[in-house]
């Protein structure tokens, strides 16, 4: 298991805290809450699979470039592929705005 933290610039605000997904095989849960700082998306990833720091960074960077949603993001991952990660992030963003 590995814990990774990232920050991305953001411009939109989270209106509703949101919970999406399950820590199930090939899946992840996303918790998104408003944070005090409106310009930053703070992301903490806990993943069961070690060594994918670069892939996580690339996946998250692409998402936050497209969806610069500020807030405190917590991802609890159980081996989701980048596509599933992006899907869950989009679901969370849609529900939170």
């Amino acid at each position: 298991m590995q814990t990774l933290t990232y920050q991305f610039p953001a411009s939109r605000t989270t209106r509703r805290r949101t919970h999406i997904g399950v820590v199930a095989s090939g899946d992840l849960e996303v918790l998104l809450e408003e944070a005090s700082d409106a310009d930053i998306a703070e992301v903490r990833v806990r993943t069961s699979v070690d060594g994918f720091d670069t892939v996580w960074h690339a996946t998250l960077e692409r998402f936050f470039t497209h969806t610069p949603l500020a807030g405190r993001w917590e991802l609890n991952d159980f081996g989701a592929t980048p596509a599933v990660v992006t899907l869950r992030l989009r679901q969370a963003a849609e529900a939170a705005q």
Partner: protein
Amino acid sequence: MTSVASRDWQQILARRSFLEGDALERASALLDPDGVAVLCGPFDRIESPWLEPQGIVPQADDGVVIARGTLDGRPAVVASIEQGFQGGGTGEVSGAKISQALRLAAESSRAGTPTAAVLLFETGGVRLQEANLGLNAVAEICSAVLDLRPLAPVIGLVAGEVGSFGGMSIAAGLCTRLIITPQGRIGLNGPAVIEQEAGIDEFDAADRALIWGIDGGVQRAAIGLADKLVDDDRDLIRAAIIEAVAGGVPPAGTHRSERVDVLGSRLASIDPRNAPAPQDLRQLWGPAFEPVNGAEPATAATSSATASRGRLWLTALAGVEPVAVIPSVLRADTTDATYLAVVPDPDNPFHRARNGEVGLTESWALAAAIDDVIASNTNRAIVAVVDLPSQAYGRIEEMAGLHQAIATAVDAYHRARNGGHPTVAIVVGHALSGGFLAHGLQAQQILAVDDPGVEIHAMHKAAAARITLRTVDELDELAKTVVPLSYNVRDWAQLGLCDGLLKVSDAEHPTAEDIDSVRSAVDVAIAAARSGPRDLSNRLDSPGALANRRASRAVRDVMSAQWHSTERP
């Protein structure tokens, strides 16, 4: 029941699956849409404190959704297990969430708002990464089901995917009504575990027809171990739950787990040396949970003479020669206490229960002996002398429903405790898994002898290592820091479940002083049980719980506050 085959294709296409939803979707599908409140939800962040130190990613709600609302206008709380997270395994937090929800429903019911509980069983059993705390959580859930059941209906549902296995199936066996789908399975020991413990001849875990033939919803309903078979359809399942809740609380003595007579008669009707096939069992037992004509359990029995710690300590503590309820269950009465132990019986007709395991007839015999004590109209104490390797892992056991048999024993211990019989357990040897749930964990006071031969756990070490994909060495290493994983009784005694760790000079060959000191500790425990609470709440307030069950206590406090702030007028 309307089977899928008998419905036309438009109905089939319009059907919305229940079991494909996640835990929250399933809970929401049952409750009335307005005013559903999720308690101890993900943003309360009471996650398992034991997983991250083992390198396992936790889930924010620990895989159980507690949703409070109404069911066709009647107050209800739903506990929905997320099967995707750790196989729906019961951990400290997820277990505490279920037992506290049941406790709060009972509290509201007593205060004049009968509040039903619906439990969605999708679980492989105790989460072995939290072993002893998971096992205890199951015991507390069983007790909480039984505390609520006389006040408001507790409805169990086994929908599918994972099914219901392990200790939680005992809780399912205690429910007012149990609803199952054809996809659902319920049993105590899962097929893979039986194959691992007893070999492929005993149970071929790859044989799906065999698995559903024994554990499947159709079979369980056909032999009366489930009350209703419903297709996987949100509307049908919701309607079945509403109907079951509307049925109210049946009279005391009529619940399946209270029918010691039915269990005894059913077991007497089968010959384990020439066991019927699951299909034949449908004819023999039928869907009504009633005694089988002409089948009475044998009463006169002589015990085998096989030496065991259980027999030794039972005889020593009671100070009289025990009598055999059946050859593998011994009873010894003093003037004010009845001592019970499960002992090895090499001639046990149930071949998977020859080494002191708690099997079908052992569960029945314990329940029958306890009922006999209750019928004596005294306030005689019950002392469980515990030395058992586990529950019995076997095919006949699952076919006949070992989870239901153990539920009968658990119900009897609870009935005695609630009726004012102080209940005490004294662990003198092994106390593992479902065996300990049946015989020991419902006691108000639990004592253990401080000896390397005393081992308390959710599963024996080799199996626990295999199932959690570790080596035994890795497991031992982790157990040094993760207290509930430890096999050392001194660590177990730190969990807040132990009311006395008793020093003896020799647990195998106790001296007169050893026996005297343990006997006086048992007497002290009986007195404490007599004056203490009749439920298991003291386990959350013990000094050990303050240190090692902080998460359980947080669940209790947070859920209680949320429950009372969402109180309906």
